């Protein structure tokens, strides 16, 4: 990761320029992100650390096009996200960007299979092709016997794996993972990390992981610390 913005190289995937995000709470403006400038190349693994409330989730939300910055620019493959329509952003998430949420965000009335299939619903894939893909991935994640269970019938670790599967299913170029190992045992954490890292190694995807806890920082190309909404290279 580079803090300055040397854009223009072939392998550049994502670039943030002077990102700023404020929320207005009870008529008072609070600044959550301030002067965020960095760029990420294809095939890189970036770890964002920082205390709770530092603004990690907010940043990932903007990078996924789920939220819009107050000012500044987030540029994905040369296209500034803030100037794209909702429709274009949705298409971007459908094909190129996947996000694993801190709180999983599974649809409670849909089964594990259906939750993962939902990400392929409008891609033009046939029902049987979708089924094949989804079942294969869930089986690989050890959820072969849990296809028809609702999220409430799954353990937290299993829910997390379903959420990971939903993100990996369409092989996105940019993987955003918000605290993906927050609530699971070390063994499961290992497996989830391996699952997230695999596409980086195999297809040159880019992975950005946000965490406030323990995360094997040695796998990262760049570790990045967030403090009070600002970005600083990890000291250590």
């Amino acid at each position: 990761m580079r803090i300055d913005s040397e854009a223009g190289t072939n392998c550049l995937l994502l670039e943030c320029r002077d990102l700023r995000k404020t929320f207005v709470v009870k008529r008072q403006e609070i600044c959550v992100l301030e002067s965020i400038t960095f760029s990420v190349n294809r095939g890189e693994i970036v770890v964002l650390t920082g205390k709770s409330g530092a603004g990690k989730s907010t940043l990932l939300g903007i990078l996924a096009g789920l939220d819009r910055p107050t000012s500044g620019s987030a540029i994905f493959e040369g296209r500034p996200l803030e100037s794209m329509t909702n429709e274009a952003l949705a298409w971007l998430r459908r094909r190129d960007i996947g996000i694993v949420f801190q709180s999983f965000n599974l649809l409670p009335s849909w089964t594990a299979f259906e939750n993962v299939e939902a990400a392929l619903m409008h891609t033009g894939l046939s029902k049987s092709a979708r089924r094949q893909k989804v079942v294969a991935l869930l089986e690989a994640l050890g959820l072969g016997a849990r296809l028809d269970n609702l999220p409430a019938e799954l353990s937290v670790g299993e829910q997390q794996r379903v959420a990971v599967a939903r993100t990996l299913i369409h092989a996105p170029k940019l993987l955003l993972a918000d605290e993906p190992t927050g609530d699971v045992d070390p063994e499961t954490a290992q497996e989830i990390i391996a699952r997230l890292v695999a596409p980086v190694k195999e297809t040159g995807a880019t992975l950005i992981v946000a965490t406030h806890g323990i995360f094997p920082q040695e796998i990262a190309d760049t570790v990045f610390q967030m403090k009070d909404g600002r970005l600083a290279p990890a000291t250590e």
Partner: protein
Amino acid sequence: MGDLWTCAGRELLRRTGRTFANVFGYLLATAMMVGLLSLLLFSKDAASGVLGSTGTHFIAFAPACTPVCDVKAVDAQNEGFVANGSETALIPAGAVEKVKRLSTVKDAAPYLSFRFKDPRDGHTFTVGGFVPGGNAAVATTCCAEAHIVAGRFLQPDDQGAAMLDEAYARSQDLHVGDKITIAGLPFVVAGIVNPGVRPARADVYMRFSDAERAITRRVLSPPVRHVANVLLVEVRSSRVQEQAIQSVKRLLPDTVTSTYACYKPAAQVMGMQEGTVWLLTLLLGLCAVVLALKSQLSSVIERRRDIGILKAIGWTDGNVVSLILTESILQALAGGALGCLVAAAILLLAPIKQLAGIDSPGPVTVSALVFLSGFALALLGGVIAGVVPALVAARQRPADSLRRV
């Protein structure tokens, strides 16, 4: 498209509680609308049946001073052609047929109304001669089978039979089966009637031809044949009464008419009723849509998070809108259909007529048009109630909806 129906159907089947509440909302709205509208139309029709024939009749006669084809009575002092208390001339034959052909007129009949003097005690009484056989104009202006208090009503072949007004029978102490003499001719009292206040009321009723014979004996030549001095007219509806009166006056310029004023309020009430029905229909429809909108909107607010999730994994606003709209339409279809069934069941099985106090023969009619429009309105409500919340949902920032847990 198939995926959409699958997703929507699945969502509805899994969230049974919410689906039930929504479908029940549509059911209630549709049943209420269809049921009330059917009832309203039925009671309006029943009331129109009554009001439409309220005061829808009149009599026409030519006052005596008009020299049409005057016939002088023998005892002109006491006897003569009368109608409504005044002396009349005769109306030319053929007038009845002309009046009958008017489009506003339902039926018309000739009537002979003559005042006689009883030679024994000198009291005068009127005789009304009509053609028995169920003429609508006779029934409403003069007397009808329903007005019988004793004995029986005059029949077409009842030669020599007479029917007495109840008040006259009492004053003369006459009963069914008694023999009376009018202008020297013998009659048997066949029945006693009490028709109430009627424009062509008489003390004694008899067949038209019997009246001709009796009157002929009391006038200076020529014999009274195929003429009448009063025209009885029954109008199609109280709303065209004024028109009918004008038409008759144009046909017979010398006549005056006599009617009740009550057809006027009746016509007004009918107009008011029609207005009320349409207003109520409109209000009921509006209520149904608002009810559906409310239930859909609250379920969308409840589902903010689901919608945020779908958008986060690449569903466009359009995809989300289609899903919510499909769910809403499915619920409206189910609720609308069930509502129609419930309404039909209640209308056909419950003692609606007794409860509503509608006094009308025949069962409560259920109109297919009302049901179709009720169903269509439920569907329309479903679409509106789907589109609005779906658009609200589509406008949410996914980040906002996902943050609220």
